[in-house]
């Protein structure tokens, strides 16, 4: 068989292929943008739609901002995956794009709690659920669509462009929010400006819709359909058939579970760790993460390309192993770089203004302590040297992300046959990323808080703290999950397409 043919169908021409990659990536990028702006603006959203003194509203708030968006993704994968395997990839991922765009735009238009009362948080929760469903259907469609247009020996490289979209989407969401913030007063942003990033999405979705509308259906799906080989019940065939279901489980436990926690550690827990554990200034942490993401994004394509040369398995497993071995030293170093108790204070520069205490340090770092009642809020602004060191440490984590995530689309596509591909690959991807990865910041933060509380309690009684480094306790979650995934992947995965034909 010609290396440029796909299952007996000639791969698309180069020009068509780049159009396919461009159209698919743009749509997926917009979906990630939409998904992330909700998270990035969660604090503002909670003040607009959820009264803080109402426990039921607080419950809805937690559900909407945290659980629903992630947990519902596998259901979107099942619902839209089934549609994609029955009616086609192109129409299904156009529906997910429109659903995501409309939900996002609608969030920007929902009146606040002050205007419509309890209907506001319920509407926001429903719209967040729709966002999660849409994202669950989008990714599998885009990855399958691009892979089915590609030459088999370049699938890793071609689909890696789809893999860049999650990171670029996050980057653009942060940039749009910061630009909107900087273009108006803080009061205007708090009043109505926060709605702008949501409304901008509608313009991007319309543009992407018209680009995608003119694309052809995937050649492999077209061939399968014309031969009457598409599945009439992809859900039953994917999960009710032992032969396929064992590959779904293998994809989840041997790859996407580990990949999900590494992705969320590198991109999200790093941010949360710097802000909540190291108390680094909000804008500075965003700059650090943004710098590392910008520097690392190209490596998605590199590792996708490399996986075409040496196989998906070694690239992904190397990323997992490196992460498992180095997470603790990396996070310990990040903590030390921001720990003002070990820095040399410039005593003559210490100032107190009202309830604010300010200190400066010899490495250019500054720290402030704001007293509010009994609580004291600490904020650290690190100096230039520490800034670049931390950015480098985050960049290393982003590199791990690119190693595990760059080849994953091609890996999943190659694991399942055309007739049930959309359904079968979407579920392990969204369980691995949405559930195992999505829960990571909350679980890891919980582990750190628990260790810090145990230390405080023990010190009050005996003086001996049970945890030497409580700030590193949160890392046990990704290390353990990635460790299990690494062993399963190493033993049970093989370095060639397992089920693609």
């Amino acid at each position: 068989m010609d290396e440029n043919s796909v299952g007996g169908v000639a791969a698309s021409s180069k020009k068509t292929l780049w159009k396919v990659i461009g159209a698919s990536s743009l749509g997926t990028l917009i979906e990630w943008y939409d998904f992330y702006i909700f998270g990035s603006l969660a604090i503002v959203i909670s003040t607009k739609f959820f009264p803080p003194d109402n426990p039921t509203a607080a419950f809805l708030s937690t559900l909407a901002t945290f659980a629903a968006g992630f947990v519902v993704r596998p259901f979107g994968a099942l619902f839209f995956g089934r549609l994609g395997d029955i009616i086609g990839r192109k129409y299904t991922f156009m529906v997910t794009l429109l659903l995501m765009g409309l939900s996002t735009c609608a969030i920007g238009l929902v009146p606040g709690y002050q205007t419509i009362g309890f209907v506001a948080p319920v509407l926001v929760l429903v719209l967040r659920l729709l966002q999660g469903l849409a994202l669950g259907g989008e990714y599998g469609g885009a990855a399958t669509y691009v892979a089915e247009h590609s030459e088999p020996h370049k699938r890793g490289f071609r689909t890696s462009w789809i893999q860049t979209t999650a990171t670029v989407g996050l980057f653009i969401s942060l940039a749009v929010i910061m630009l909107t913030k900087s273009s108006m007063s803080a009061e205007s942003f708090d009043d109505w400006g926060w709605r702008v990033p949501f409304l901008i999405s509608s313009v991007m979705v319309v543009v992407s819709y018209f680009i995608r509308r003119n694309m052809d259906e995937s050649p492999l799906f077209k061939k399968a359909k014309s031969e009457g080989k598409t599945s009439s019940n992809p859900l039953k065939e994917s999960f009710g058939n032992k032969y396929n279901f064992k590959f779904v489980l293998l994809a989840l436990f041997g790859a996407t579970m580990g990949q999900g926690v590494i992705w969320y550690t590198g991109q999200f827990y790093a941010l949360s760790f710097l802000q909540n554990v190291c108390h680094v200034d909000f804008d500075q942490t965003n700059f650090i993460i943004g710098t590392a993401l910008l520097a690392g994004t190209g490596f998605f394509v590199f590792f996708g390309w490399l996986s075409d040369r040496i196989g998906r398995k070694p690239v992904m497993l190397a990323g997992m192993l490196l992460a498992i071995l180095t997470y603790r030293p990396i996070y310990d170093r990040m903590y030390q770089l921001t720990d003002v108790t070990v820095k040399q204070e410039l005593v003559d520069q210490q100032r107190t203004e009202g309830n604010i205490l300010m200190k400066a340090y010899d490495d250019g770092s500054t720290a402030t302590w704001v007293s509010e009642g009994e609580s004291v809020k600490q904020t650290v602004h690190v100096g230039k040297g520490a800034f670049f060191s931390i950015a480098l440490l985050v960049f290393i984590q982003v590199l791990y992300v690119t190693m595990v995530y760059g080849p994953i689309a091609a890996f999943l596509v190659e694991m399942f046959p055309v007739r049930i591909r959309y359904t079968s690959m979407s579920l392990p991807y969204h369980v691995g990323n949405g559930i195992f990865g999505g829960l990571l910041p909350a679980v890891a933060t919980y582990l750190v808080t628990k260790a810090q509380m145990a230390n405080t309690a023990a010190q009050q009684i005996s003086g001996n703290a049970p945890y030497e480094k409580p700030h590193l306790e949160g890392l046990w979650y990704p290390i353990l999950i990635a460790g299990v995934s690494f062993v399963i992947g190493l033993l049970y995965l093989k370095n060639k397409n397992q089920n693609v034909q």
Partner: protein
Amino acid sequence: MNTIKRILGVVWILLGLAAGYYLIVSQAIPQFTSGKTEDLVPAIIYTFILMPIITGGLCIFGWYALQGEYNTVE
């Protein structure tokens, strides 16, 4: 290698059961009974999302491994 894969099937089943026990007994039940509204969300997630996926998934995966279903993958 096939023998190792099959023997490890038992490990995956035990790991799934241990994770299920930890999620329900150590995490979900104390949170369900804490009386705090904010504890309800993680308790629901542990019981209805994480436990079925981890325990159910790993046990089935381990069972398949034990039966030699993944031997052909090598």
